[in-house]
């Protein structure tokens, strides 16, 4: 399925803004992303598998509140970096 990558994480994806990844649940998809682009998961998810404060994950346009969110084969996952201020 298609995953949209924000600019702060594109250093991991060879500057690609969208990549393909697989997974039954959102957590699986992030693990699959990490296997393709080592290190990318820990920048979004902490060691207790919690989504970091300024990262938002949208599945098919809806914000996912946890990583157990079930994905469909044609789902689109959108990773958002949310931060303001200087």
């Amino acid at each position, binding site marked *: 399925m298609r995953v949209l990558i*924000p600019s*702060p*994480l594109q250093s991991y994806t060879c500057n690609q803004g969208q990549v393909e990844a697989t997974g039954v649940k959102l957590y699986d998809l992030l693990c699959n992303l990490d296997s393709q682009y080592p290190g990318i998961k*820990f*920048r979004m998810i*902490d*060691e*207790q*598998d919690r989504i970091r404060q300024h990262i938002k994950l949208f599945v098919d346009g809806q914000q996912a509140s946890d990583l157990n969110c079930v994905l469909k084969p044609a789902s689109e996952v959108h990773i958002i*970096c949310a931060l303001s201020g200087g």
Partner: protein
Amino acid sequence: MQGSTEKRILLLIGTRKGAFTLSSTGLRQRWTLSGPLYLGHIVYHFVPDPRDQRTMLMATKTGHLGPTIFRSNDRGGNWTEIKTPPAFPKVANEADARAVESVFWLTPGHWSEPEVWYAGTSPAGLFRSEDGGDTWESVSGFNAHPNYVDWTKNGATPGGQLLHSILIDPSAHEQMYLSISVGGVFESSDQGKSWTPLNKGCAADFMPDPNVEYGHDPHCVVLHPLKPNRLYQQNHCGIYRLDLPSKDWVRIGLNMPEAVGDIGFPIVLHPRNPDCAWVFPMDGSTVWPRTSPEGKPSTYVTHDAGQSWKRQDKGLPAGNAYFTVKRQAMTADTSESVGLYFGTSQGEVWASFDEGESWGCLAQYLPEIYTLAIAEYA
């Protein structure tokens, strides 16, 4: 000899928005600014490895992303992200679940363990690498200590609870020290397997009981490499010296001018004289501006282990200058006439090549400076 053209000095500069370097020959007459490196990344610590004279580690995060470490194996020429950043063990109980917010401190290990590094984090955690910083393990002797919760219960400073000043005794690799803001100084005599508080004599004026065993706020603790039983400490509540085996810190800051006080972040030692140290006082009154007292920045030096202090402000602004110098942002080189360097929250790098007697500005307009470190190559 005041320096040589063969020697190369690199000043590693970590800022809130990326890393830079200033480089010079040993003559220290002309400095070249390079960078930015990792522009936009928050660089908490940027440290060379004096053991192999080539490795550097840089502890970073960004506003959005979790913490990581970058490593160079060629004196800063090329950089790669390490494999596994410091992280607490995963636990089932949410109440006990700790996650590293930032890697705040990096210390190369003992000379007998050339691949070992230590890292201090926020929230307070101690981590060890045995492969040159590529992978890290939680040091359970501290992070899972039965008293850990008690030692760290007084919460965080506004920048988070910081574990810093990880010190390895060069004469005995099993002897270690670490400090926590807020938590205090702790000592280990078995390479981190067990720890005990080391705060007797230090004030904790902000506590209901100022004579507590732990809960203090050390800002920066240093150990003299040629006299490792001597520690100095710039604390939230004064400047101290400890001469082991005594366990009583002595408040040498009481010998500072009363109008200036003895509050600050950094303390820097002369590389060859254990009686000589520099501090950069700040205003710790009322709401803690943490700027130069009365807007008049100056270093203060002691040549007698803190019995007396001398003001050193030649070349620094005479007024209307509200510098803040953070705990990692002041350092020294090892030249015969020791070079001193400090970086400000206004993005300026100041240097003295006559042991603080006179100062000049090496760089301006950088982002807020968090850390300075010196790498010297023959």
